[in-house]
């Protein structure tokens, strides 16, 4: 028996409630991010962007797109490896949703505060690359194949800085639990971004862009080179699954970054149990805006440059960050 808000409820009922609540939060979280991507990019480019769907500001555009994709024909290329081709979106969505288990929206509103916490999140989230690789390989398309291979190369380059950047936080907090990390920051009075992990945050954010395949690391998709990379052959709602998973990924990685470095659900003077979810979503919005901003500003890197940057700069920098953090932790 577990408690959500202090009332004893049957575990399975609670589980269902959690799933529904978090699905609701995620949906209400990613639809604005998708809409934000459309609108923010438009305004950055002196355009208006979506305008008609839904009446005001075109707010219903993401929904309209979803409904449109819902009606589209779903094609599996004759040359494709059908099983793998169909399995790939499942794997992607499963790994993306499983990450939401450990995101603390408030001290109590968390699906499961695992002991392994952040370690689990890192492990599960990199599974999505496997989905991408499967999609690329099984399409029977050369662009997709190259795109899938690029995705694999990318995770090799960026998984390590991502993990090493987290270790700095773990040293400071002394726990892997997500709630524990947030509470440590609340105790400390400032988020870790200010409290010693500036470099760690920079590395984590850069690497998470790469993990999400977003510009400037959108090599696996690379529209101008590989058409749509591993997504080239996907159509209809199967394509939408990838699309949703991408934005769910934006949400989850932003939430993890907010939890690790920006103090998660905590904010000075606000009661975490009540305002926690709003505070977290606001921080997620901030990071998502940063990602959108970067995407519509920067060109794309080349994969050799990406590897060089990861191995020659980020990995040594992350190790140095660990050492300095450890020294501070032991000495002071």
């Amino acid at each position, binding site marked *: 028996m577990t408690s959500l808000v202090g009332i004893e409820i049957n*575990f399975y009922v609670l*589980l269902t409630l959690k*799933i529904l609540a*978090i*699905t609701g939060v995620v949906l209400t979280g990613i639809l604005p991010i998708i809409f934000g991507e459309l609108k923010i990019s438009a305004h950055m480019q002196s355009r208006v962007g979506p305008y008609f769907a839904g009446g005001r500001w075109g707010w219903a555009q993401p929904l309209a797109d979803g409904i449109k994709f*819902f*009606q589209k*024909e779903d*094609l*599996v*290329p*004759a*040359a494709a490896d059908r099983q793998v081709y169909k399995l790939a*979106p*499942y794997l992607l969505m499963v*790994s*993306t*949703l*499983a990450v939401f*288990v450990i995101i603390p929206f408030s001290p109590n509103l968390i*699906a*499961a*505060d*695992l002991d392994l916490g952040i*370690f*689990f999140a890192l492990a599960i989230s990199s599974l999505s690359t496997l989905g991408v690789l499967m999609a690329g390989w099984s*399409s*029977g*398309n*050369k*662009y997709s*194949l*190259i795109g899938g*291979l690029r995705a*694999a*190369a990318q995770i*090799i*380059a960026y*998984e*390590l800085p991502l993990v090493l950047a987290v*270790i700095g936080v*773990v*040293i400071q907090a*002394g726990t*892997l639990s997500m709630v524990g990390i947030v509470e440590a920051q609340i105790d400390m009075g400032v988020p870790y971004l200010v409290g010693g992990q500036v470099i760690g945050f920079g590395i984590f954010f850069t690497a998470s862009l790469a993990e999400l395949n977003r510009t400037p690391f959108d090599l696996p998709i690379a529209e101008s080179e590989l*058409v749509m990379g591993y997504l080239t*052959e996907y159509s209809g*709602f199967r394509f939408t699954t990838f699309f949703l998973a991408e934005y769910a990924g934006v949400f989850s990685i932003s939430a993890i970054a907010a939890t690790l470095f920006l103090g998660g659900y905590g904010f000075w003077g606000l009661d975490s149990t009540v305002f926690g979810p709003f505070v977290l979503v606001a921080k997620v919005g901030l990071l998502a805006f940063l990602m959108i901003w970067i995407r519509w500003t920067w060109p794309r890197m080349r*994969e*050799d440059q990406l*590897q*060089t940057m990861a*191995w020659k700069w980020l*990995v*040594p920098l992350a*190790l140095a960050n*660990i050492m300095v953090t*450890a020294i501070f*932790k*032991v000495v002071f």
Partner: protein
Amino acid sequence: MSEYFDQYLTVLAFGAFGAVLVGGLLGLAALIRPSNPTPAKLETYESGIDPIGGGYSQTHIRYYVFALLFLIFDVEAVFLFPWALKIESLGAFALWEMFIFIAILLMGLVYAVRKGVLKWE
């Protein structure tokens, strides 16, 4: 034990929910979407003309050495997590020990860079 089990049951449930979500929505879409495949539609896309050879042609993976390096450092990261958790209680000795560990690994990286294997060729 029970709580541990419950926690991972939650994880499993979330994973299952993801699968059900995709499957359910795809199934729902299958009810209303058209399905009219023709050979031309099922052709893989290669810039508008018939593909040359198959899509599964052999290709040269340039990042093999990177993959090896990744493996080594990823294992290192697994070692680092427990150390990072307990460093406060373990004190200076653990600090030095891990520094030596990291230094040895870094030497490997420097060696790889000097050998030129990190050039994308």
